[in-house]
């Protein structure tokens, strides 16, 4: 099992969700984060112009079985991209164990 952490634009979220759904990924978790990166956003507040490199992003955390991994990454890459600076990143981390709380079953079937 692998954990995919994808940091994406909020505005691409619906596309990403649908792409994952089409792939059969029915479970994932997300939250809103602030991303510091190359993309900058112009801001004005009471006459002070400033560029903020802190941009709203959505963080998707998704644990998948080995065999779904590549397809999931593919789907994410496609749906999250706008080809402009700031599209975000995907990281893959190893997962040692997964348990469904309700049934206590563990392993890939619990995903």
């Amino acid at each position, binding site marked *: 099992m692998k954990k995919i952490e994808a940091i994406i634009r909020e505005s691409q979220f619906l596309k990403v969700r649908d792409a994952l759904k089409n792939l059969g990924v029915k479970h994932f978790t997300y939250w809103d984060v602030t991303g510091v990166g190359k993309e900058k956003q112009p*801001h004005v507040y009471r006459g002070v112009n400033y560029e903020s490199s802190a941009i709203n992003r959505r963080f998707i955390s998704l644990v998948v079985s080995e065999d779904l991994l590549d397809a999931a990454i593919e789907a994410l890459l496609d749906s999250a991209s706008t080809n402009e600076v700031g599209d975000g990143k995907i990281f893959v981390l190893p997962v040692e164990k997964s348990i469904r709380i309700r049934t206590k079953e563990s392993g890939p079937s619990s995903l």
Partner: protein
Amino acid sequence: MTDALFTANNLWLMICTALVFIMHLGFGFLELGMTRQKNAINIFFKNFFVITMGILVYYLVGFNLMYPGFSDGSPGILDFAGFGLSLPGGESIDYAGGGYTYWTDFLFQAVFAATAATIVSGAVAERVKLEGFMIFSLLYVAIAYPIVGSWQWGGGWLSQLGFHDFAGSTLVHSVGGWAALMFVYFLGPRIGKYQDGRTNAIPGHNLPLAAAGVLILWLGWFGFNGGSVLSAEPNATSLVLVNTCLAASAGAIVAFLVAKISFKSFDLTMLMNGVLGGLVGITAGADQMSVIESIVIGGLSGVIVVYGITLLDTVLKLDDPVGAIAVHLICGIWGTLAVGLFGDLASGSQFIYQAVGVGVIGLFCVITSSIFLLITKYTVGIRAKRDFEIQGLDCTEHAMDAYSDFQTK
């Protein structure tokens, strides 16, 4: 004067009192919205303190210091009619020519007095030490504000000179604004506001409530200016309201256009400050101006407030989170001088009277503020501890969060 007219006049003043009262919610929302979340409780604590303390202190000493009834031939500088209040006796209808009762007079003036202190509150937000702010504002409402008031509205030397300040561009707004300026100067900027010569923006955490605050303040100005006619005389009151609303509108439109040209964005905070600048600007002469002059005064206030904020914030490096100094002090001065330039009183000598008033009151406010600030600084202190400021005053001074349990879905 019939009973009915007396009743109607007094009723108008009572309503105006209620409207000025609710300005304190407007100020509260404005300050809350333009500061950071970690100080939200502190903002409202200060505001509640100012309005409640203000009314009590104005009862105790302020009213009788501001309206001491200078005797004939008095220089009209300082007099005191004693602690507390007591009905002057006799038929009330004679009290003010049937315009209002003694009690209405007191309450209307009391909510005005609290306004001056609230202006300070916004400018010093996010770093002032609570006890220090309390002591300063108590002294200022008890002593400085009513003494200045007595010079003009109390029938003192300024009114004898010919100075005109209809509803308090100078007597309320600048008086508050000078104290704000001195307090900000003594306090220094918030941590992180100025770094290596750069001016950082510290955006407020709730602009919709700040915007609501501005609309509530505008509503309050119906009472602030409308009540300053001191009767419900139909033509005078209604012209004042028209002038007030036109000046606010002109200030808003001009401010947002100036900001759009200067900063290339539709800056809501500047538009809001334009409304307030226009309101403060027209306050001194709302009874003297024609509608078109009101629009001009309001519109110029819109220019002044935008550049005033930028000047203070980025050039003078005076950190005023809500723009109180630009709005209340600078536009207050502008509005007061405008009475010498526009409207029925406009004349060279009137302009000089206005300038004298602005200057002398400014000097007096700067001096008294400095004294009070020094007293406060060397007793309880005026600046919150560095740690407290960084963590936020809510959890350090109030042990409370403004939005505990607020969750995002």
